[in-house]
């Protein structure tokens, strides 16, 4: 249910003559804008239909902006000057003070009261100023005191004052109780007492609109949560888009914090909000790079997206988003890293989730064989040293079998398989490490894994070529690992001679192998700092650091055996910061 009220084209519909364009040079408050808001204030004061309420809500941010400008102009004036400059200022402010939507919104009430304070004369010189003073006091009392509540006014006032309390105590408790009553009504479905489904929906919709200006008032949080989990009987969503968008915006700007289930409900019922949250998180994750994976993990966890993903519908939307990002960037390493880190966070959340209605993992990856998924999910620390090698071969064989099966050759299926592999990219890193340190004879399987990782789209059998060149680089690196005196220049020269320019994937694979060589072999350790300082620029620095951060994260979890490597990687990352 998405109805949008068309905004008034403030800046175009009114013809403004040059002479009257500026009422106040500094603040840029044109007469037409002033009149526009005065007209709006009049309009809102007279009609209280849901449509006019929607119109108020739609204009609130702009109005607040305008009021700030007015305040900016007023603070340098006394009452007489202000009235001369803005003859209708009293009418405008007075009408706005009457409107609870405006008073309830964000900081509008504060700015309005600042304006009133500017207009107050400490030493009134004439009847106009005296009248203005009296009017300001009346307006402020209406905003702050217990009057204005109908015939119970003085009773409540007496009661609260006799208790030794102030209106601030009363309204705090009142809002708390009103919110509590509404939450109870919603949860009991008390609204169902109304005759038709239609009138229930319109009541809930109306309530949502009332909440829009109040969203960042913490007292209202329980009501927002109750509304987000409210489902009417009908098939159509009863909550209006304006409400959902406003709540989402407040969450993303960290102006409010709602319970996890409420946030999930919001994203489940409003896909654009989920997409916006994803995009925002994704953008920060990309701009964070090259940063540590721990920082990325924190960013993901603070977004709640990884936990929301435990709901398969949300997971699928996120996957769709990642797929598009990978396709549009041609598999940029930053995106691949994001997918990997996100997957890790998701799996952790999935394991921690003890809900009764837990979906099987298969539900999240419906397009992939379960055996492959199971193989990827194995944790390297659960396998013995030799077992790890076997497991890599097993993964390579499974992937190869899937990719090379005739019926699987369609582009979509190929992509799905590769996409799953990207989620668990640590296995590619492990394969590169094994190619250089393992003495076992099975380098083809590892090379195939890496070649597939960097070049899934095997047009004209180019993967065979990539593998051949990769093998040659790898053999050369193995020789270098046994050379007694090695310099970074030797390494660079040797690798350069092995890579052809026709195969972009080979270059990526070669960097991966070089970095693994530097980190996991003794000879590599000796020249690592030098190579990074002088030759990392030959490749894309971002790619190199992205690889290093991934490896840093992986080895830091492998225990004391890798302590030296961990230190080295961190040093290299430091050096990289000054390269480029």
């Amino acid at each position, binding site marked *: 249910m998405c109805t949008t009220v068309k905004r008034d084209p403030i800046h175009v519909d009114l013809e403004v003559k040059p002479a009257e364009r500026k009422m106040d040079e500094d603040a840029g408050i044109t007469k037409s804008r002033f009149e526009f808001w005065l007209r709006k204030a009049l309009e809102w004061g007279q009609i209280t239909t849901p449509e006019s309420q929607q119109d108020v809500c739609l204009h609130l941010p702009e109005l607040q902006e305008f009021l700030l400008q007015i305040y900016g102009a007023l603070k340098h004036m006394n009452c007489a000057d202000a009235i001369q400059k803005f003859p209708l200022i009293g009418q405008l402010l007075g009408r706005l003070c009457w409107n*609870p*939507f405006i*008073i*309830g919104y964000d*900081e509008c*009430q*504060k700015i309005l*009261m*600042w304006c*009133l*304070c500017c207009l*107050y*004369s*400490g*030493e009134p010189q004439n009847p106009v100023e005296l009248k203005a*003073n009296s009017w300001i*006091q009346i307006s*402020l*009392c209406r*905003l*702050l*005191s217990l009057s204005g*509540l109908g015939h*119970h006014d003085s*009773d*409540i006032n*007496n*009661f*609260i004052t*006799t*208790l*030794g*309390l*102030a*209106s*601030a*105590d*009363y*309204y*705090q*408790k*009142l*809002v*708390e*109780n*009103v*919110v*509590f*009553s*509404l939450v109870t009504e919603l949860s009991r479905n008390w609204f169902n*007492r*109304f005759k038709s489904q239609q009138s229930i929906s319109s*009541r809930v919709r109306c*309530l949502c609109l*009332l909440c829009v*200006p*109040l969203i960042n*008032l913490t*007292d209202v949080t329980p*009501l927002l949560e109750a509304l987000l989990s409210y489902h009417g009987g009908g098939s159509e969503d009863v909550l209006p888009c304006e409400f959902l968008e406003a709540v989402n915006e407040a969450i993303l700007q960290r102006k409010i914090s709602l319970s996890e289930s409420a946030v999930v409900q919001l994203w489940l019922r409003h896909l654009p909000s989920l997409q916006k949250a994803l995009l925002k998180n994704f953008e920060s994750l990309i701009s964070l790079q090259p940063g540590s994976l721990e920082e990325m993990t924190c960013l993901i966890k603070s977004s709640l997206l990884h936990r929301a993903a435990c709901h398969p519908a949300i997971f699928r939307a996120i996957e769709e988003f990642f797929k598009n990002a990978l396709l549009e960037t041609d598999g940029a390493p930053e995106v691949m890293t994001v997918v990997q880190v996100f997957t890790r966070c998701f799996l952790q959340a999935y394991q921690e989730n003890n809900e009764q209605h837990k979906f099987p993992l298969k539900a999240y990856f419906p397009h992939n064989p379960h055996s492959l998924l199971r193989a990827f999910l194995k944790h390297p620390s659960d396998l013995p040293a030799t077992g790890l090698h076997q497991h890599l071969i097993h993964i390579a064989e499974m992937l190869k079998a899937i990719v090379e099966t005739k019926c699987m050759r369609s582009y979509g299926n190929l992509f799905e398989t590769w996409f799953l592999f990207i989620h668990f990219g640590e296995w590619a890193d492990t394969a590169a490490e094994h190619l250089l340190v393992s003495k076992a004879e099975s380098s083809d399987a590892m090379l195939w894994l890496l070649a597939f990782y960097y070049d899934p789209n095997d047009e004209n059998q180019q993967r065979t070529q990539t593998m051949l060149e990769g093998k040659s680089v790898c053999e050369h690196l193995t020789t270098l690992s046994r050379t007694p005196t090695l310099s970074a220049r030797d390494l660079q020269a040797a690798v350069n001679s092995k890579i052809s320019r026709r195969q972009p994937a080979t270059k990526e694979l070669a960097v991966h192998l070089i970095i693994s060589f530097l980190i996991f072999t003794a000879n590599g350790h000796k020249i690592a700092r030098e190579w990074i300082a002088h030759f990392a620029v030959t490749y894309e620095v971002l790619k190199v650091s992205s690889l290093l951060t991934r490896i840093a994260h992986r080895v830091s979890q492998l225990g004391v055996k890798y302590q030296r490597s961990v230190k080295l990687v961190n040093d290299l990352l430091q050096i990289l910061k000054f390269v480029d």
Partner: protein
Amino acid sequence: METLLSQAEQLPSLLAASRSALVRGWDTATLQRALDWGHFFQQLHSRLLCQPGLRTALERRLCRGRRLSLGHLRRCPQLLGLALLENRALSSAAYQHLLRGLLFPGGHGEGSFIPLLTRRKAASQLLCVHLAPPPEVSAEHWVTPQLRAQAQLLLSQLREEGGGEDRVPSSLVLLDQLPRGLMLYRVVAVALLEPAGEAKARALLLLWLLQGDPAHLSVFCRLLPAPGMASLCSRYPELCVHYFSYLAAWGSRLSYDLLQGEWKVSGLEEDEVPWQEMRERVVCLLQEPEPLHSSIRTQLSQLKAKDGDFEIRGLSVWTDLLLDMETAALEKMLVPNLL
């Protein structure tokens, strides 16, 4: 400590002055001094936690003479600021100074409480409109959020007042100072019905109702709506005893109009309850769970027996009430879907 105590003794007169015409003579310097005192009292309160000796002494001193509590110390800047804002006697210069101080606070290390208060008031206005229940269910919804807010504030103030055994009288004094009327009784009833917490404060409230001025209790039982009284009786048997005796008295004042075939009030006495209301009050009591249900039924039968135990309408209010209840129960059994 004695200096502090004598300074704190100025609190009541400061608060009283802020609400009076005395402020007419205040210039900005006087006003600022008053506001500074307000902040001083607030700070004093924040230090009481770690100084229990001072706390007790202050409590004693404040409660002596004019009734004030430590809460007044804590809330002093708010109480003072709001009272002065509403005070028309304040000069323009002082008022301007006050406004600036309240809206642009600085120096005291905290933001102004004014915007949040305004926002909350607006929020309650917006949301209360939505709460208005449709007319057909309003009878059950006599417990409004306004009443609940007042009831919770009353309970918390009673708790603050009545910390120790010796504080009991001061809480009862507070209750006697509250403006009497329907609103007070409703607030008291809602406070007694609060689901949890504040047991001590609720006990005080019940004590005030049952053992204080007897006029309170009869007006309380008379003015409160039938469902409210029934819920209270279910929760507080000691209150039920009194309520039923009032019901019995009200019933005995009804007389049967033979021509119109119905129970009527004489219209001569103040404390009369019409038949329809009697009936509603009894129905509500009988709708409460056991043991109240059986107890009310027994007591009604006893009253009926006193009147001669006739089964014919028009002779005893109690016979007629019981017959009515049976008919209603039968109807409910036969056509449950229509009700």
